């Protein structure tokens, strides 16, 4: 019953004209970012943070969240029509979606993508509504050791799951934590790594770093190979968008499995929408009665990944809102925005700022309805946006970023931070170092350090405190397993190979 009352409160907040308007603007921009190749949801959110400064915290995060899940809708359009993913979470949609389009079934593919997104997205918000409050009230009892274990686990999981180069991801996370150390130490008041610079006393600006690592380095990388401009001349009538009964029958199972998988894997730190859509597609192919149809235009192959990436966007909100731990790069950037707006992320958020949390959750129900309307009848308009040349986008993205960063503190120094991390981010991309663990580490760095030092003060310097308390014990063990998992896998492979040669 509580949940019901809270939801009413949430809708009360979300239904103010201001919040509805910005929710709409958020999902609109999100769809656009999803459609445009060469600019991803994380970049989009990072660039938009400064523009949200004039708004209340609730309106700001409603807008940014809208960009995030809106991008999941938009990404499928280009995947299906021109075989080019608008963002990485819709890579899997390309496989069968484009084949369907080639066979003249672009309409049902696009329609199924939008409807699957809507159904899975709404499912994920319902799950979020049900799961988040009990989880938050459970987490309220967490002390410093639990928090340290949790943040530590978040960092190791993001690094271990985030790509095929775990070692480089760990290095990226350690570097991020080091960057978080810059500035005045909150406990002792000692200035660290500032070298007499007044600008660094407050620490390295989060927005500058995020925009540098994602937006600027993305532009630099795209300079290497100019983005191809492909147009689609597919004529799309509104009626042609609706999948027929047979399509629904084929994709029903894929849709609910994709939603479930996407939501639950999406709640894990480090998973992200891209990984969820990969897993959902792989699962469908494996359990299908006719796996040979996948890749030739099977509608299940569109429904499963599209459902999964939207459900994952909802799932990602669970650890962010209840624990203050981001699950990936996009939520890390959103969490940074939350802090800039003066909210303290963590389980207390539900009791101290119920209007914010429930307003945000309720706005996601509304946003999903907006999105299905935007994406079904108006899909032809979105396709036209592909005609914007990337050459026009480069100056746009750079000037919006630079101006926004200046606006955060009226300080040109923050622009230099963007410049520096743009260069660092580009080199990292070239050397296969993922940027997500670094940004995540900067966002939660202070929390990691505080909880670690407080725990060790409580325990008189013994690290056993992280193992003897039940919750932190479990979390620490998970963290250690994921930390050493790459090593274990190598040893296991060697052991098996050794066995084969002796046998």
């Amino acid at each position, binding site marked *: 019953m509580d949940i019901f009352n809270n939801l009413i409160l949430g809708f009360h907040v979300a239904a103010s004209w201001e919040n509805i308007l910005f929710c709409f603007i958020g999902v609109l921009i999100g769809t656009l970012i999803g459609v445009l190749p060469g600019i991803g949801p994380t970049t989009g959110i990072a660039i938009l943070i400064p*523009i949200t*400064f*004039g708004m209340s915290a609730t309106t700001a995060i409603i807008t940014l969240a809208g960009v995030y899940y809106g991008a999941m809708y938009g990404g499928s359009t280009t995947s299906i029509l021109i075989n080019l993913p608008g963002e990485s979470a819709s890579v899997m949609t390309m496989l069968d979606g484009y084949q369907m389009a080639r066979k003249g079934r672009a309409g049902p593919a696009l329609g199924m993508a939008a409807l699957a997104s809507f159904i899975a997205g709404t499912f994920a918000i319902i799950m979020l509504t049900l799961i988040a409050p009990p989880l938050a009230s459970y987490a309220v009892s967490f002390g410093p050791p639990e928090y340290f274990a949790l943040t530590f686990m978040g960092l190791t999981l993001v690094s271990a799951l985030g790509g095929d180069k775990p*070692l*480089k991801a*760990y*290095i990226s996370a*350690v*570097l991020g*934590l*080091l960057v978080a*150390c810059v500035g005045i*130490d909150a*406990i*002792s008041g*000692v200035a*660290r*790594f500032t070298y007499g610079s007044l600008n660094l006393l407050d620490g390295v600006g989060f927005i500058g770093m995020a925009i540098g690592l994602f937006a*600027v380095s993305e*532009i*630099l990388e795209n*300079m*290497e*190979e100019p983005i191809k401009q492909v147009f689609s001349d597919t004529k799309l009538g509104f009626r042609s968008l609706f999948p027929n009964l047979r399509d629904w029958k084929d994709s029903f199972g894929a849709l609910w499995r994709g939603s479930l998988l996407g939501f639950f894997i999406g709640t894990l730190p480090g998973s992200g929408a891209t990984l969820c859509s990969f897993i959902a597609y792989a699962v469908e192919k494996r359990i299908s009665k006719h796996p040979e149809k996948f890749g030739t235009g099977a509608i299940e192959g569109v429904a499963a990944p599209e459902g999964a990436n939207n459900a994952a966007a909802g799932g990602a909100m669970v650890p962010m809102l209840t624990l203050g731990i981001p699950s990936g790069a996009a939520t890390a950037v959103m969490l940074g925005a939350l802090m800039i707006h003066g909210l303290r992320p963590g389980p207390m958020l539900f009791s101290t700022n119920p209007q914010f949390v429930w307003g945000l959750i309720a706005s996601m129900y509304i946003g999903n309805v907006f999105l299905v309307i935007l994406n079904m009848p108006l899909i032809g308009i979105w396709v036209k946006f592909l005609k914007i040349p990337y*050459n*026009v986008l*480069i*100056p*746009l993205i*750079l*000037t*919006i970023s*630079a*101006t*926004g960063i*200046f*606006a955060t503190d*009226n300080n*040109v120094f923050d*622009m*230099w931070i963007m*410049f520096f991390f*743009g*260069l660092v981010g*580009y080199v990292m991309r*070239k*050397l*296969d170092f993922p940027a997500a663990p670094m940004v995540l580490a900067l966002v939660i760095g202070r929390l*990691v*350090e505080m909880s*670690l*030092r*407080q725990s*060790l*003060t409580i325990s008189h*310097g013994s690290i056993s405190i992280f193992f003897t308390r039940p919750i932190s014990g479990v979390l620490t063990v998970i963290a250690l397993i994921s930390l050493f998992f790459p090593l274990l896998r190598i040893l296991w492979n060697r052991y098996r190979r050794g066995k084969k040669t002796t046998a």
Partner: protein
Amino acid sequence: MKKADLITAIVLLVLSGYVIQDAWQMPPSATFGPGPSFLPFWLGVVLAVFATILFVSAWCRQATKKDSEPVFPGKQALLGIVLILVGLAGYIFLVEVLGYLVDTFLFIVFLMKVVEHEKWRLTLTVAVSTTAALFIIFQFLLQIKLPSNMFGL
């Protein structure tokens, strides 16, 4: 990639040594419990360990096909990247001298004309409309005081 990994590992090792040394010189904790140098010091140690693993694994690994490919792109693309970086640095450097409006306009013209070789018509359209739109959004709607030059522009 193999050679790049070796160089990266050495750079990271130097960085970790520097961090450890810097942490060593921080004042000790005045109160009970770990002090300000605690986390930086251990991060430096962990970074050194990771960098060593990276070095050893890159050293021992057999060169794959990907290793023989250059990490950084050819001259043409690299020139574009350097031009963007130089333009951006100039933009940031000059924003308080030239003022926001002039500086932003020139930066966009530089990007579209010098880096991308677009036509003048498109260049000027984008430069004028973007500068104007950003100025209106930030200066008037968000009430941010953007940098101005000596003439107050």
